[in-house]
């Protein structure tokens, strides 16, 4: 299996084989970060641009470290609101930077579809680092990597994704990735935050927390944005935490070896209590660690030397 795509825009468009190729490649890169000298020359001479149209710290940093550990040059092009208001379109911005001869763009934008628009217009590789509620492929890939590392497989596992599904790119990318690798996915949250037709992507839907956790091997909690309460998606943070939060009371009745995941940053006491986030079943920090390996793999496959 060889990588042939110019871009990584989402997991919807990837085949099972392509996802597995990324995961295998990531496996071989993971060891680099545990060395004393955390660097290989793989992408020496390549230029990568972090093109972030909305603020992000962790994803941007993770890509930056991944690029540096592969010896690529990485440029940070974060766009403040003021330069957006100067009226330059995202495509124009990307074309301008591309004119300086770069190899890869890592793009985050607050509107679904913008990385795809950019990818269509430019020759350089484009990685979608999150386009609003649409997709966040590298997050789902690092989740898949982490699950496989811990459970030894993905096929046959049952994963409950709990929280604000409607506004979650992480949920969408994970539904595609998990189902393509043979896991079953159950989505759980208040009905106001679950689009009724999302089941057609291949997941079950429940509004009952108990039902969601019953047979699950992994509980994947999503971040709850406090603004959603103002938009009347739920009456209060307290009620949300009571009905859908990860706390030891709610988690009675889970499978014995259940594992807890979260894409971060976590709201302690809202969707997850400290007693759970810091417990031995929590994979939250390992997800972050694996993010580097997965992003190294993606960068390598997209712009590495093709033999």
């Amino acid at each position: 299996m060889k990588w042939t795509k110019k871009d990584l825009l989402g997991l919807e468009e990837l085949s099972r084989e392509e996802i597995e190729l990324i995961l295998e490649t990531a496996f071989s890169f993971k060891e680099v970060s545990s060395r004393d000298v955390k660097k290989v020359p793989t992408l020496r001479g390549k230029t990568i641009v972090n093109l972030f149209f909305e603020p992000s710290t962790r994803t941007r940093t993770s890509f930056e470290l991944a690029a540096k550990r592969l010896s690529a040059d990485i440029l940070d092009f974060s766009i403040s609101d003021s330069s957006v208001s100067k009226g330059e379109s995202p495509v124009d911005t990307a074309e301008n930077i591309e004119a300086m001869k770069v190899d890869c763009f890592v793009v985050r934008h607050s509107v679904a579809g913008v990385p795809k628009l950019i990818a269509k217009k430019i020759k350089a590789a484009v990685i979608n680092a999150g386009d609003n509620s649409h997709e966040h492929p590298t997050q789902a890939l690092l989740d898949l990597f982490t699950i496989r590392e811990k459970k030894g497989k993905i096929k046959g596992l049952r994963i409950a994704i709990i929280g604000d599904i409607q506004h979650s790119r992480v949920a969408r990318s994970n539904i595609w990735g998990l189902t393509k690798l043979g896991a079953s996915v159950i989505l759980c949250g208040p009905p106001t935050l679950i689009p009724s037709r999302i089941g057609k992507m291949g997941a079950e839907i429940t509004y009952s927390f108990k039902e969601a956790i019953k047979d699950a091997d992994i509980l994947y909690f999503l971040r709850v944005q406090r603004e959603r309460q103002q938009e009347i998606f739920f009456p209060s943070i307290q009620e949300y935490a009571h009905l859908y939060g990860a706390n030891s009371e709610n988690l009675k009745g889970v499978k014995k070896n259940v594992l807890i995941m979260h894409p971060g940053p976590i709201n302690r006491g809202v969707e997850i209590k400290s007693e759970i986030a810091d417990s031995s079943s929590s994979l939250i920090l390992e997800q972050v660690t694996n993010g580097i390996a997965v992003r190294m793999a993606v960068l390598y496959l997209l712009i590495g030397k093709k033999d």
Partner: protein
Amino acid sequence: MNLLIKNGRVIDPGNGIDKIADILIKNGKIAQIGRNLKARGRTLQAEGMLVVPGLIDIHTHLREPGREDEETILSGSKAALAGGFTTICVMPNTNPCTDNKTVVRFIYDRAKQANLCNILPIAAITKKRKGEELTEFGELIEAGAVGFSDDGNSISDSRIMRRALEYSKIFAQPLILHCEDTELSAGGVVNEGYLSANLGLPGIPKQAEEIIVGRDLMLAELTGAKIHLAHVSTAGSVELVKTAKKKGIKVTCETCPQYFMLTENAVKDFDTNNKVNPPLREEKDNQAIRKGLFDETIDVIASDHAPHSAEEKEKDFLAAPFGMIGLETTLPLSLALVDRRFSLSKVIAKLTINPAKILGIDKGTLGIGRGADITIIDTKAEWILKTENLKSKSKNTPFLGRKLKGKALYTIVRGKVFHNL
């Protein structure tokens, strides 16, 4: 000056005519219809062609005054003629808005300078289309307004909507209503369904349209006023209108080709040319719209021609404006409805006599002595829609590159022939 159209298939649904005949035009008026007519002057051979009353578009947006870079009255007139339309009714959402006599007169002046097709202004129902104060219906009608609409906006206050309907009963001109519960649709850019769930784009539920269709039907019943519903897009709206018509409520409605030709799936690639309001719906809605056209629940096919510049449409999916152009594609896309049951005459009626009746204008038929507005159509012509052939100043249509069948060969306005536009 005579003009003779020979041997065409003359379809005049308003007069129940569908036969091979000649039409003689004298001094811009229809003088005679019959076989083997002879006259001096110009002759158009129409053998194998359709000869129909000039098409009427009840729902066109031109951008003059205000955004002449996107469409002017002149460029819009050319697009209309190319698409077979001899009369277009222009919506008031210009800048300034058509809420006063001055703008109505300006439109007539510019139309006269263009001297191409008939342009009939639709005035706003409320000042600045804000849904607060009524415009001066009487004065606007005297200046030449043929109907009233706040198109693009719904009048959200039911009391003001009621007053507008009651007051409109003084006059014959209809209120043309854009039905949208803007609180329910707020922020939405595509139909709420599988596509919005998949792409994570904010959705507009069908009920945002249907709630206001239902409300306005009830208010029409309450007031006894007549209403015409713009761009009906859902199976539920068709059902509501059908029931209302049975009850005797004075309602007519229109749809547009995109609502029986395209579904939400067209948005999958984030092509903003498919961003329209109401949004593209689902297959079952397409089917219900077709059925509604067939059983006469839906009276009219309109273009909802909405030009936007390339720069506006190149924005991201949230920021790009709603709308697609339609004057040059409505005829072939409507002809695609024709099958063994759905007659040509039925389709032509929805583009001629039906809109004329709704507006109460003396057009849409081929009566003797009438102004000779005639469209000659080659129903077999197959052609590919290309940017460079569009007469509209704006090119925002998702049908670019599509093979279309049927084209206006000659568009005749008051006896003047336009050809090869």
